[in-house]
Structure formats: structure tokens, C-alpha cells
């Protein structure tokens, strides 16, 4: 695999009066609860190692207090780490001066916020153009660029409005347009859709996927919503109490959770809608005969069940780019719908 665009190495963040002293304890193996009890320091992040590939959507998922918002703020150093490195395109940004850091934030990164964080006294157009205005561009330049991106996110003709005149979903579209106007490679999205109602959230997710197909940015997306994470993620990182519990391809995590926390997490989701044919199929290129038809490798199990009309005796050929990649039997499909226990023994059964 190519060098990762963003690489987080051995990152620690401890909040408290004397983080350096607490750091030694954390490095010696203390976890969040013990550190709080014994030393009155809050462990924000503990030994985080994540590689984020260019052009992929990396989703960091966790519940409140798991440190996910802290983590994303380390990527542009809105929060300073206690220890560790963040390497972006081969450079450790911990070594950056203030001026270099500003350049990084202006040129290479943009951010979308949970509560939109638009400037209420500026128009939608000016808000969308913020990165270019900050960079000292002329009005003629930013006006065209901001208008282009506003149009792209579906806000044609809303430029002269003020943010408070728009609905929540539209305000977040402005937030996305603002991030796109900077023309940066990396887009940080901090619970960007969490404040929106479900239908609009789905719209926005689709918009993001569509933009991503077109623009191929490196997106870091923070969420507490597993469905959203599974829908968007190329690479899924699950955080708990400031530590990475598991990371990898979402389908893989679904089939092979390695922690009871994750088992709990994934027990409530609709597996038929999330799991895909390629995850459940048996890989082979030989045709044993008697197959009932063909499905695409990215078809969800729901699609397959619908196609089989509920008949569990059937098997399908799975196609990858129109050539056969494997065989999917309906028995496997049904089995895959039962939540998996954690890989190790002694784990709590998901209820």
C-alpha cells in the first residue's frame, strides 16, 4: 500500500495539572479509569496508531467521551498532544512553527463542524469563501470559487442570505462548501451530520459519498452512529476510553469483532442491510453448476434475500467487474445474519 496521507503514531493526550507525570503512568500501562482514580488526570487518548490512506474515508467511531473529537483536533493541532507524532504527507506537524501550521490549516486541511460554526454576521457566500478570504485572495477570485462550490452542494442562489435564514441541513451544506472552497486534500469532519435530523442526515451522507467519488479527498469523519460509520467508511477505527479497540475494513470488523464492546455495538444493527455479498461469499472461480443467478459483490444481503425470494436452498454466482469471484449460498447468507461473538473466548454474548 502507498504511504499513508495521515499517520498518527503513539499519540497520547492527558488532561490535568501535570500531564507529563501522568504520561509515564499511562505509558506504564494505566488505563482511563485507573489514571483518574489514582492520579486525578483524565486520559484523553492513549497510544493511538492510525494510518489514513489518501483518497479514503476514514471513520473514527466511539461514544461520548471516547476521545474521538480530541483525536480529530490533533490532526490540525487545535489540541496539542502530550506525546506522539502526527505525520501528514511525510512531515511531522509537531515540528511546525506557527506560520507553517497556519499554512497547513489554510492549504492542506479543512474542517466541518458539528454545530456548523458559520460566521453569523457574514453572508452564505462570504462564509463559503472564508478559507480564501483568510488567505487574502481578491473578491473576484473567491466569489467565483465559492459560488461554484455552493452550487455543487445544492445551494444555488442562496449566496446573499445570512446563515440564520437557512435550515440546519442547508447550513451544514454551507459548512461543506466552505471546506471544499479551500481546495485542500484533507477534510476533517467532526460529527458533521450528528445535529441533523435523520432524513437530512441520509441526504448529506449521500452528498458526501457523491463528492468523494468525484474529488477523492482524504476524509476523516468522526461519528457516534454505527450505521453512518458503516455507510461511509473505507477504514473504520473504533475508539473506547481513549484507546483504539479495533480498526480495519468495516465488513471485516462486522464479521470478526475482537472485543465485547464492539459486539455490543454491532448487535443492534440491521446486518442484512450492511453486510455485502463479497464478505459472506466463498471465493472460487469454478462454477459448480446449479447456480440460481448472479449478484454483484457489493450487493447487500438484503438484495440477495430479495432476489432469492427467501428460498434458502439457492446459491448465487458473485461477480466482480463482471467476472466470477465466488459463490454465495443462501445458507451462509442466513448464518451471517446472526451476530457474531467476539473472536476470543469468554466474551459476553450479544443479546
Amino acid at each position, binding site marked *: 500500500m502507498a504511504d499513508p496521507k495521515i499517520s498518527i503514531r503513539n499519540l497520547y493526550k492527558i488532561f490535568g495539572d501535570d500531564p507529563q507525570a501522568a504520561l509515564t503512568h499511562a505509558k506504564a500501562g494505566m488505563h482511563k479509569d485507573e489514571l483518574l482514580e489514582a492520579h486525578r488526570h483524565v486520559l484523553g487518548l492513549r497510544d493511538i496508531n492510525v494510518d489514513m490512506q489518501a483518497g479514503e474515508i476514514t471513520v473514527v467511531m466511539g461514544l461520548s467521551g471516547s476521545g474521538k473529537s480530541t483525536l480529530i483536533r490533533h490532526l490540525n493541532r487545535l489540541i496539542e498532544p502530550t506525546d506522539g507524532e502526527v505525520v501528514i504527507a511525510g512531515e511531522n506537524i509537531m515540528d511546525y512553527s506557527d506560520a507553517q501550521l497556519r*499554512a*497547513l490549516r*489554510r492549504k492542506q486541511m*479543512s*474542517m466541518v463542524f*458539528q454545530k456548523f460554526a458559520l460566521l*453569523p*454576521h457574514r453572508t452564505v457566500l462570504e462564509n463559503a469563501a472564508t478559507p480564501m478570504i*483568510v488567505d487574502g485572495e481578491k473578491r473576484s477570485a473567491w466569489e467565483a470559487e465559492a459560488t461554484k462550490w455552493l452550487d455543487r452542494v445544492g445551494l444555488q442562489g442562496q449566496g446573499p442570505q445570512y446563515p*440564520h435564514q437557512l435550515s440546519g441541513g442547508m447550513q451544514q451544506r454551507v459548512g461543506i462548501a466552505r471546506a471544499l472552497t479551500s481546495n485542500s486534500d484533507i477534510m476533517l469532519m467532526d460529527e458533521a451530520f450528528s445535529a441533523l435530523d435523520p432524513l437530512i442526515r441520509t441526504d448529506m451522507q449521500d452528498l458526501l459519498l457523491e463528492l468523494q467519488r468525484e474529488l477523492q479527498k482524504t476524509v476523516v469523519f468522526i461519528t457516534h452512529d454505527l450505521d453512518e460509520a458503516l455507510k461511509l467508511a473505507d477504514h473504520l477505527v473504533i475508539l473506547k476510553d481513549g484507546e483504539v479497540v479495533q480498526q480495519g475494513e468495516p465488513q471485516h470488523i462486522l464479521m470478526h469483532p475482537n472485543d465485547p464492546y464492539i459486539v455490543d455495538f454491532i448487535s443492534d444493527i440491521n446486518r442484512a442491510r450492511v453486510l455485502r455479498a463479497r464478505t459472506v461469499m466463498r471465493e472460487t472461480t469454478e462454477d459448480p453448476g446449479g447456480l440460481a443467478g448472479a449478484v454483484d459483490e457489493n450487493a447487500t444481503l438484503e438484495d440477495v434475500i430479495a432476489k432469492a425470494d427467501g428460498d434458502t436452498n439457492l446459491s448465487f454466482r458473485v461477480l466482480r467487474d463482471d467476472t466470477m469471484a465466488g459463490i454465495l449460498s443462501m445458507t451462509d447468507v442466513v448464518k451471517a445474519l446472526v451476530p457474531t461473538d467476539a473472536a476470543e473466548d469468554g466474551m459476553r454474548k450479544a443479546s
Partner: protein
Amino acid sequence: MATYDWIFDGLGLRQWCDGDGSGGSAPMSMADLMNQTGNAPERTIWDTPFPSMDALNDACASFPQSRELTRGLERGFLDIKDALSYVLDPLTQPLSWALQNALWLFQETPWWIMIPVLALVVLAISKSWKLVAFVAGSFAALAFIDYYDYAMQTLAIIFVCAVICVALGVPIGIAMSRSDRFQGGMIPVLDMLQTLPPFVYLIPLIFLFSVTEPKLYGIAIILYAIVPVIRLTNLGIRLVDKEVIEAADAFGMTKRQKLYGVQIPLALPNIMAGVNQTIMMSLAMVVIASLVSAPGLGVLVLRGIRNLELGVGLISGLGIVLLAVILDRSTKAALARVNAAQKH
């Protein structure tokens, strides 16, 4: 025989007490005199005085009386007075100059220019014709009863003082919002400025400057009225939405861009509320400042009190109320426009 003789006897200080002048240095109080003439009444436990400076002085003549404290302060102030006015005089001279010129400008401009100009200003900041009609009507009424000149003097003083308050107060407020330590140091000072009775400001100022100089009342008004604009600027900037500040940082704004592009505009409603309060407080102080030769409606109020001219006092008081209403409504209208432009 005084109540606290035993303290000095016990400490072996009797000699020091009787040493110099044996009570001759401390002036005699009325009570002492009474005690000397009449027979000293029998003291019971109920009469035990608090061991104050005066009570201890009774027992030991070398111990200073309490009046020495105030006198010492006075002497200390008089000692540094010359040096202080040597520094403060040139520093505050522009204030005198500004007040004199504003007074001249406001009084020399004929009424048929002044009233329309004021109406236009009100129109520009409030965009309300109703308010403009009210303001023009009020000034016409004041002019009709021949109080126009006094009202203009008051207005000129408030204009100068309010401008200076904003020019000094907003930067101080910004500095406070940026440094917790500076804020911690300033808050007691602001508390004191706000609670010190207004008359008290005047006492040291009278010693420092000549009563004929306008800056004397100018400084008193500014010290009294600057507090709200400082406080509300500080508060306003601290209250700016954390996420918006974070967004400003995330898009690489410099400190200056953040201050002028985000913090001040978003704090503007609070700053404007501070300006409104500052103007109201300068109006209150301008009346008191008439004691030290500030011209304007306050002089008439003072005349009313001194000469028991009930009518003059009441009418000029009402005139001040009218000015207050005009200034308050105009700044509030401006504030409302700012608020409307940036509700969330």
C-alpha cells in the same frame, strides 16, 4: 487613668509613652475637655471602649490618634501631588482641549443646523423616523423654554467623554479577554471605580487640577463611566461561540483576523450594550460634575438646590431625563439593528 494603661505598662513602654511631649502632640478632643472639666464618671464594663487608636492614645500619649491617619494620607498626597500633576497635566491636556472645542462647536453651531444634524445622526444609527421625530421634538421643546444652550453643553461633554471611554475601554476589555491574569487584576479596580461614591472621585482631582480646567470633570466622568464598556467588551469576547473560534483557527486565521473578523463583530451586541450603559453613566456623572464647574443642565440643578429655586431644579431635572431617553433610545435602536443582523 485610661482603660488601656495596662497594655503599655505590661509591655514596659511607659517610658516611651511619656517620653516626648507627654500628650502635647495630640490635639485635645471634645471628650477629653469634658472629662477634664467635670468629674470623670465611674467606668463600668459596659463602657469599655474598643482598643481604637484614640482609646490607646488616652493611655499613651505617644500613640497616634486616628486623625493622624487621615492627616497622614493627606500629607502623603500633597507631597506627591506636584510630581503627579507634572506627569498627568500634559497627558490629560488633550482632554481639556477636546472638551473646550466640543463645547464651542455645540454652542456656536446655530440651532437650525444643530437640530437637523442630530436628527440625521439618529436616523443613520436607528433607521427609525419615529425616533427622529421624538428627538427633534424634544430638542425643540428644550429650546422653546430656553434650555437649549444648557442641553447642548451637557451633550457636548457626554459626546467627548463617551468617545474617550469607548476608545480606551474597548482595547482594555479586549486585553482582559485575552489574559486571565490581567482580568483578575482589573476586576477589583473596576469594582472599586463602580462602587466608589461619585463625589469621592472629585476630591483628589480638585487637588490635582485647577477647578477652572475642563479636564477636571472630564476625568471624573470618564473614570466613572468607563467601567461598563470595559466589562461588557471583555464579557462579549469571552462569550463568543467556542466552535466559531475553533473554526477560525481551523481555517488558519491569524490573531488579528480572528479579532477583527470574528471576535469583535460577534461581541458587538455586548459592546454596544456597554456603550449604552457608559453614556447613561456619563449623564449621571455630568450632573454631579457641575459641582466642579462642569457646564450644562447640572448647573441648573445645582442652582435649584442652592437657591431653592424649585421650578428651575425640576425643569432642568426633567431636561436631563429627556436627554437620557434620547441617548438611550438611539443607542438601543442601534443595538437592536446589530442584534437583528446576527441572530443565530
